[in-house]
């Protein structure tokens, strides 16, 4: 690692991007949407540069994904560049991702040129301005993040105003690139804290980030939604994305629904993990996702090796099988979930969008708990909203905290959770929540279920029958 020259001026990077002659991520997504295929993409990042080259090469060879990824390590995500650089030097295997800023844009170009498909940067940085410059200089124009979704799940104490401002800069840069003829695909991390995230909370955050991004000049948005595990609910959430886009985003912006294969606690047994991987892929197909981010059978254990990663991709690709035309979702149930989630998103975002300064309104709403996420990593969300799974496995809102949900919505969730009127028993709740978090391992019989909760027990439904 020698000293890195500053990234070249934008116009030069634009020329470089053109000279690559590659499809852009936006092109791939557009083609997927047009043909009804789901584009498939892994997460992948290791600390060493040569190891990263090998990883990308293996995945491209063995699994032919539609897009590839550079997943960034945690130090770089948090802006601890010196630490990342030191480890990249001394002990790259101890990094849980590729330290792009440390390796620099010339190595970024090398990685980009290594593979025929577009590459995306996936990270989790509240302030990604420098990383974005390095990415663009590397010729990479697909970039995940957002001022809310890359703050609250990813850091403890970065004020939302700061992360929103930093991401507004990135998004304006996307506008400049658009003016120069380069469309940046900006994926919004609707996955948030990944565990029991109510679909309306995920989508509301993405709508707000999308509105801000579009205003700043972004022209291609991928709205990621984390598979929760309930078929109709997940399909509805994906189908909500284009509806919400028409409702809240300007017409000139392309919007792609993206599914993240289950992002919570994964089963440990290989076969069970693979069942879940396939299920996620089928959900992406049924929900009309343009893209799917895959998991691997090693998810429960640690960062996967290349072979496991390739196998996860290959399994997920089966969802594009022309032989599965007979797959169908219960359309009635999906329509009902869709109507509910659209109404809830409206209840959450419309008060914020009604204010003049949207970014400021977002900051104030989170401070006041009128926007909120469960299990926040950050102090800047209250995490007063408490999710639970209903007896069918769908993620519902047990306690809305201060979310401005209508009484009707709140009542519906409580009814779906078979709740009485009294306050929840906190000890029981803890056990129940743990069971809900461990939903899939339990469904596969991997753990003994947590002691029977004292509150209303689940009745029929997937879990009960497993």
């Amino acid at each position, binding site marked *: 690692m020698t000293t890195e020259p500053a990234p070249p001026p934008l116009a030069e990077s634009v020329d470089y991007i053109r000279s690559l002659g590659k499809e852009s991520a936006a092109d791939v997504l557009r083609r997927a949407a047009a043909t009804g295929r789901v584009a498939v993409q892994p997460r992948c990042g290791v600390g060493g540069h040569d190891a990263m080259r090998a990883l990308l090469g293996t995945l491209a060879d063995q699994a032919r994904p539609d897009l590839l990824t550079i997943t960034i390590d*945690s130090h770089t995500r948090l802006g601890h560049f010196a630490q990342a650089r030191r480890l990249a030097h001394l002990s790259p295997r*101890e*990094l849980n991702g590729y330290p792009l800023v440390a390796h620099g844009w010339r190595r970024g170009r090398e990685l980009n040129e290594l593979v025929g498909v577009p590459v995306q940067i996936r990270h989790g940085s509240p302030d990604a301005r420098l990383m974005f410059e390095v990415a663009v200089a590397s010729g990479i124009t697909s970039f995940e993040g957002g001022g809310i979704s890359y703050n609250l*799940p990813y850091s*403890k104490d970065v004020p939302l105003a700061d992360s929103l401002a930093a991401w507004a800069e990135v998004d304006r840069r996307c506008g400049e690139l658009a003016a120069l003829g380069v469309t940046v695909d900006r994926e919004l991390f609707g996955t948030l804290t990944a*565990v029991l995230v109510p679909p309306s909370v995920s989508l509301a955050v993405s709508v707000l980030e999308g509105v801000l991004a579009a205003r700043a000049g972004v022209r291609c948005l991928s709205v990621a939604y984390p598979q929760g595990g309930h078929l109709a609910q997940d399909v509805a959430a994906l189908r909500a994305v284009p509806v919400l886009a028409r409702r809240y985003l300007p017409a000139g912006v392309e919007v792609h629904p993206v599914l993240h294969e289950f992002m919570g606690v994964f089963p440990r047994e290989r076969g069970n993990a693979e069942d879940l991987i396939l299920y996620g892929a089928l959900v992406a197909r049924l929900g009309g996702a343009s893209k799917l981010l895959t998991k691997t059978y090693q998810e429960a*254990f640690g960062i996967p090796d290349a072979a496991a990663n390739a196998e996860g991709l290959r399994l997920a690709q089966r969802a594009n099988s022309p032989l599965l035309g007979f797959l169908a979702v219960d359309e009635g149930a999906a329509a009902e979930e869709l109507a509910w989630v659209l109404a809830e998103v409206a209840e959450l975002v419309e008060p914020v969008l009604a204010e003049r300064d949207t970014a400021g309104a977002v900051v104030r709403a989170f401070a006041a708990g009128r926007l909120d996420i469960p*299990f926040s*990593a950050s102090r800047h969300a209250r995490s007063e909203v408490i999710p639970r799974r209903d007896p069918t496995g769908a993620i519902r809102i047990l306690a809305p905290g201060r979310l401005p949900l209508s009484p009707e919505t709140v009542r519906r969730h409580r009814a779906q959770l078979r709740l009485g009127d009294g306050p929840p028993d906190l000890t029981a709740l803890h056990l129940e929540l743990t069971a809900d*978090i461990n939903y899939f391992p339990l469904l596969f019989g991997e753990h003994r279920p947590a002691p029977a909760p004292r509150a209303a027990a689940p009745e029929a439904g997937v879990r009960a029958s497993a």
Partner: protein
Amino acid sequence: MQQHDAAPRVVILGVTASDAHAVANHLIAHALRGHGFTVVNLGTCTPVSEFAAACAAHPAAEAVIIGSVNGHALEDLRDLRDAKATGAIGCPVILGGNLSVGSTKDEGVHSRLYDLGVDRILEDPAELPGLLDEWRARRSAVWSRAAS
């Protein structure tokens, strides 16, 4: 540094510096509170210096309980050796989570973590109350021997 049995039992809890995984932290804090502990929860992304500052602020803390699941335990706890050596962190340190990068684990990491000053590595958070009770009992035994 004797303690009354009636006094609230304090523990300091947090996740390592580069690690934003919050769920286990939320659940462990809740469970320990359920067991009657006063939990000073520093939350995610907590550098060793912040654990040390909490120790200073809460001299009665029985233990520092650290989680790390993103694989960066070794690097994130580099400063622990100094903190233990200087007494900046005086109470025992318990560590748990997913302590190294990758899907196959090299147990050598555990001894390196013990070298850094970790006192106990646990797998299951459910073992925490038992361990804390055991340590308290052993501390009491030491004190009563000193008093006799």
